């Protein structure tokens, strides 16, 4: 297997240094094979971060392979600097059995561009009626630790309580899609001044906040871990902050698009801006940025949701909800947090270390010697415009088309294999399906 010497990278933004890679691990540069067997990468001006971990993606396979496959999703992840992505359960069939999660897990290993970790459904068929076989999924080859009905809220409070309790068996975590269903029937966009004018049925902030409030109280009561997906409102931030101050084991996630875009964009009626939870107001965006900077929000999750053109090239009300985001996540977060005290160490914390810790993705989040060589190099001074047509994902529903960003992802090392080199995808990891076993 190849050896690499990454020379002169600014490690975590904390100072220049060399990183050596051998046999899929980060090693002391002294240990590289004598005689120059290692490929030297001049990384001067680049910043090295631990490979990014995404707690929230939709890879669409099985079932909607025309929108994305595990392979194209994995390539998109690698291009975005992600060495580990979690694939949500709302596939067809739903990932609610050991069989389906193992299939997704295996497809990820065959693809070989990133570590694909399936998320199991909380309830059978995402129907919110009966617990899925959480234990079987946890004990399967996929080793599922995160469970979510994402796309649909686990609305039944008793079922939510049981799920929170049950996953303690294997230190699992429930990732809640907080959306009170009755308050959001037919909802098309954020309920606010813009929806009032456009006459589009509103999705009120309280529909998210009321579920989060309930669930942090439940998590406190049963002493379980709770993760809140895609927090989108200032009120949600307040509730999470309050819960953390009481010692509730809650973690919260925000998407790059909720840090950057507002519901004013809906005035265009372009469905590329249609997403769930919906784009909120500028006050919400400011509160989310603040919360990410002060640690109230723990992680970035992309909620990467590719759709085929026919589901987006339609009228607003008929269009599917969702945006792609893995390939633009890091540059967008950098732009969104530009005015905050938020350095590259913080970026590594919210996009790699903390999501790795929450999900138990042990091979990720560290640049220490001895750690698995999951590394991303970024160029912080590479201004360019976002062109969705050039992305590896099949989804073209990227809301940032045309936006100029300063940061480019240049290289991704996935268990020691350079899957992205100078911004171009290379080859899958050569170890086939067994790279983590070494």
């Amino acid at each position, binding site marked *: 297997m190849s050896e690499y010497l990454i020379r002169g990278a600014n490690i975590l933004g904390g100072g220049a240094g060399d990183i050596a890679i051998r046999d899929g691990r980060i090693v002391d540069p002294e240990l590289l094979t004598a005689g120059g067997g290692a490929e030297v990468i001049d990384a001067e001006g680049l910043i090295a971060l631990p490979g990014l971990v995404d707690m929230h993606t939709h890879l669409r396979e099985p079932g909607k392979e025309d929108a994305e496959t595990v392979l194209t999703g994995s390539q998109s992840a690698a291009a975005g600097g992600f060495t580990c992505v979690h694939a949500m359960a709302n596939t067809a069939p739903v990932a609610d059995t050991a069989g389906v999660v193992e299939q997704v897990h295996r497809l990820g290993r065959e693809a070989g561009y990133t570590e694909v970790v399936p998320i199991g459904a909380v309830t059978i068929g995402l129907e919110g009626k009966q617990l899925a076989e959480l234990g079987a999924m946890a004990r399967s080859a996929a080793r599922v630790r995160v469970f979510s009905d994402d796309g649909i809220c686990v609305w039944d409070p008793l079922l939510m309580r049981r799920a929170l309790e049950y996953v303690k068996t294997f230190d699992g975590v429930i990732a809640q899609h907080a959306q009170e269903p009755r308050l959001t029937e037919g909802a098309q966009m954020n*309920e606010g*001044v813009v929806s009032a004018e456009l006459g589009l049925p509103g999705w009120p902030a309280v529909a998210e906040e009321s579920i989060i409030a309930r669930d942090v109280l439940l998590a406190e009561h049963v002493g379980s871990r709770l993760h809140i997906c895609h927090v989108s409102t200032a009120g949600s931030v307040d509730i999470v902050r309050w819960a953390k101050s009481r010692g509730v084991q809650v973690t919260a996630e925000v998407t790059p698009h909720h840090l950057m875009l507002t519901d004013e964009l809906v005035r265009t009626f372009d469905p590329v801006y249609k997403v769930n939870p919906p784009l909120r107001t500028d006050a919400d965006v400011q509160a989310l940025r603040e919360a990410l900077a002060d640690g109230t929000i723990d992680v970035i999750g992309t909620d990467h949701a590719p759709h085929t053109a026919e589901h987006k090239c339609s009228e607003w009300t008929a269009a599917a909800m969702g945006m792609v985001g893995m390939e633009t996540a890091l540059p967008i977060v950098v732009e969104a947090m530009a005015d905050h005290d938020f350095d590259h160490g913080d970026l590594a914390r919210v996009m790699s270390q903390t999501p790795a810790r929450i999900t138990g993705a042990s091979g990720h989040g560290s640049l220490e010697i001895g750690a698995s060589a999951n590394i991303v190099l970024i160029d912080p001074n590479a201004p360019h415009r976002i062109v969705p047509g050039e992305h590896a994902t099949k989804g073209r529903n990227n809301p940032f088309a045309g936006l100029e960003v300063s940061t480019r992802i240049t290289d991704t090392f996935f268990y020691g294999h350079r899957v992205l080199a100078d911004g171009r995808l290379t080859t899958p990891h050569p170890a086939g399906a067994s790279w983590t076993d070494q």
Partner: protein
Amino acid sequence: MKHLLDTASLSRAEAISLLDIAEEMALVSAREVKKLPVLRGRTVVNLFFEDSTRTRLSFEAAAKRLSADVLNFSAKGSSVSKGESLQDTVQTISAMGADALVVRHSGSGTPHRLAHTGWIDVPVINAGDGTHEHPTQALLDAFTLRRALGGFPASGAVKDGPRGQGLDGAKVAIVGDILHSRVARSNVHLLARLGAEVHLIAPPTLLPWGVETWPVTLHYDFDEALHQVDFAALMMLRVQHERMHESFFPNEREYSRLWGLSAARLARLPRETFIMHPGPMNRGFEISAAAADSDRTLILDQVENGVSVRMAVLYRLLTGQEDHNE
């Protein structure tokens, strides 16, 4: 002006100009030869994804009086119900040689989307989209009101009509289901732009969240509003019966008692208050028969003026080059 998608982006001058052209069109409609050669050889397509015979007929009459050919496309029984995409539908129709699209759709924003996707390059006229806007209805309401408040016959040909005028200072109340009404939204923007003082009277459940930011005065209590303000006109909105099953109000009886234009409320109105309704009416629910049939209603005038106003809109959008310098 390339499209007519809403009244929110219509300037006062543009609105008054459209109303003035409509005055000319009303004169034409009173002639023996009720036709103008303006759109000879051009095709107007009525693209109705949602049924509305009244609005479609009004647009059809308007286009025909301007000598246009009219194609009617109704989504019912068409390939749209078989899953054809909006893009394919519109491009197919465009390939048949449409010079303008009149679009009615149940989803807010669809005409706006058609105007801005690049699928087609012809003027788009919004004939009602979801609960967003219905700009020609608001224009015909303003036309009717401008006539009535100026002391002119509310419809028909008037030689020296109120050209150049707005509705400055007129106190107009819109009553009923504001939340679900595209007519209300279009009227709020247009009436305010024309200088009217707009009041909304509705139960809080039927007002949109954030309505406080609109240029209006809000009233929950109909009787109190009538007591406080001498309205120049009341625009009653249609309330759909289904709303009570969605808990917007307890039942029809209570709605009617609190927000309906009953015979008793009619009797308390000043003599000169006009009554309007975009139709179709639910007699005995939001409006009593006494009110609907009283001599102060402008309801049939509204219908008649609809043709003149739509002729004006077609004329405005289909003649002249936008980029012509002169």
